[in-house]
């Protein structure tokens, strides 16, 4: 009997606020241990939580971005469980009434090859709720040490419906979700920094049936490749159990990166009894509907919508949109460049090839990754460059040289062309003389051309370009050579 996998994900995302969810202590990744705490973070006797409104707004914004309904009232529950990273031994969370209800995320599956766009589909969300991050445990040989800096960071927990059927879909979902969250400025979603963390629920059912099978929950999937590997491992493990006539135990499993396998943490019988109840220290917040309308108006265009628009109105190919549209900054850069010069394809080419290449080369030599906003190039640099190429002022080839120069110096391309005397040569007399020289010097190539081998012409172009330092107008050169050979 063939089986089909059913996958649901729970994703914790750290919301980018200056201060914590329930107190004004700041947060910064990488700070020295226990330097970002206060009485509330440490759960000292007598402390009380106070809501950070910025976190509520950002979570609502995330919900709007993902098509959720925003609850009328934002309420808090206590989830009671003991763990050394939890300063109060209860987590403030939203059990009964999440801030964001429902929602759906458009995902793009990988195509048959990198350059070909894959299918799109929608993944349904169950909810998004707010909660607080615990501290960070580091396990040493015989002891565990605790840093409470992370404790109290606002977390959005995004829960999908069991709506995916393969690790490929799960990975596509995570990538698309991450793009949207970064777009909306809610989080940087750096999994290495723990800003996005994922748990996966996996079950199997016979193909063609509707009823969900018994699921297992996989914890500790701290990179996209872990998510993929763990889901695949679990599908295989469950398939073998079922094919062997066994049944799946509902349990929580932990993915072990070292051994690329998972092991059972606890069964359903040992499951936590969280004793949720409404938190008596926090008061409900009525979500202001007019403010929600404002937040909605501030939302960025989702990446896949943008991709569609670029393909339709700018006729950009998928090879360009797939690179451009995952990065909001790049898109803004691109659209601003279009204001100067309407050549979408050429500009997009410069951004996705030359600009990204130079940026990554620069960050490899430097110590941090450079963003578009941090380099010397502005949209008008690139637009102007494309413009002077289109106007025939310089050749494409010279354009590459000008690009490298302006990336380093930040000078405008026309100034560089002027200063270095790179203007394309249109002096027909000079080029004609050089062409005659070239034809005379390579009778073999001339012969081949005459026999119908058009490519042989290239051997004649080379010396001319060399002599003009690349400044000969290629179209003019082409025409001249043909004319002279035909005449000759």
């Amino acid at each position, binding site marked *: 009997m063939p089986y089909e996998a059913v996958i649901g994900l729970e994703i914790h995302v750290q919301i980018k*606020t*200056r*201060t914590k969810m329930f*107190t*004004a*202590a*700041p947060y910064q990744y990488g700070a*020295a*241990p*226990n*330097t*970002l*705490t*206060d*009485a509330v973070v*440490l759960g000292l006797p007598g402390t009380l939580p*106070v*809501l*950070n*409104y*910025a976190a*509520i707004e950002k979570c609502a914004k995330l919900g709007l971005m993902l098509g959720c309904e925003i609850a009328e009232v934002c309420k808090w529950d206590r989830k*009671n469980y*003991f763990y*050394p990273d939890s300063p109060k031994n209860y987590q403030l969370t939203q059990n009964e009434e999440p801030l964001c209800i429902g929602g759906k995320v458009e995902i793009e599956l990988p195509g048959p090859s990198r350059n070909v766009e894959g299918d799109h589909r929608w993944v349904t969300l169950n909810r998004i709720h707010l909660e607080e991050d615990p501290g960070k*445990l*580091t*396990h*040493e*040989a*015989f*002891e*565990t*040490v*605790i*840093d*409470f800096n992370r404790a109290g960071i606002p977390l959005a927990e995004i829960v999908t419906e069991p709506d995916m059927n393969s690790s490929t879909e799960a990975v596509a979902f995570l990538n698309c979700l991450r793009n949207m969250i970064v777009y909306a400025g809610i989080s940087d979603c750096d999994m290495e920094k723990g800003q996005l963390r994922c748990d996966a629920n996996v079950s199997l059912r016979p193909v063609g049936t509707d009823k969900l099978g018994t699921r297992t929950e996989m914890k500790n999937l701290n990179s996209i490749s872990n998510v993929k590997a763990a889901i695949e491992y679990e599908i295989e493990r469950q398939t073998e159990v079922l094919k062997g006539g066994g049944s799946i135990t509902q349990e929580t499993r*932990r993915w072990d990166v070292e051994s690329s396998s998972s092991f059972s*943490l606890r069964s359903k019988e040992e499951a936590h*009894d969280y*004793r949720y109840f*409404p938190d*008596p220290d*926090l*008061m*409900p*917040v*009525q979500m202001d509907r007019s403010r929600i309308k404002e937040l909605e108006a501030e939302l960025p265009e989702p990446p896949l919508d943008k991709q569609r628009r670029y393909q339709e109105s700018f006729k950009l190919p998928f090879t360009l949109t797939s690179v451009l549209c995952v990065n909001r900054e790049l898109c803004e850069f691109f659209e601003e460049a279009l204001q100067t010069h309407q050549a979408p394809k050429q500009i997009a080419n410069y951004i996705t090839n030359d600009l990204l290449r130079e940026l990554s080369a620069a960050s490899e030599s430097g110590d941090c990754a450079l963003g578009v906003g941090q380099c010397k190039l502005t949209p008008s640099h690139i637009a102007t460059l494309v413009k002077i190429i289109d106007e025939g002022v310089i050749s494409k080839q010279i354009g590459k040289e000008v690009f490298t120069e302006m990336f380093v110096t930040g000078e405008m391309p026309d100034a560089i062309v002027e200063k270095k005397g790179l203007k394309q040569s249109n002096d027909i007399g000079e080029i004609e003389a050089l062409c005659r020289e070239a034809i005379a010097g390579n009778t073999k190539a001339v012969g081949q051309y005459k026999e119908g081998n058009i490519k042989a012409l290239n051997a004649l172009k080379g010396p001319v370009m060399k002599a003009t330092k690349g400044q000969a107008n290629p179209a003019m050169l082409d025409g001249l050579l043909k004319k002279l050979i035909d005449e000759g």
Partner: protein
Amino acid sequence: MSETPHIDIDYVANLARLDMTEEEKSKLGSQLDDILGYFDKLNSVDVEGVEPMAHAHRVANVWREGDQTGETYAPEILTGMAPDHRDNQVVVPKVVE
């Protein structure tokens, strides 16, 4: 709740992370059975349709505005009170999971 209520002390003590001797547990067990029996009084009142009340006063919309950072504690405040610490981190016996 209509049958005589009885607490599974072992289960609850484990949830509450309380170590108790067998003697403590059995004494507590019978005391709590009495108390739960007394709680049966609650069944005498009809609460159909009554909204549960978590607080006496309806206060809403209390929050901190502006996301402005406040003061932090020097790590010495934590290490000064922690039963065990090293390099500004709190030390506990090895946590497995």
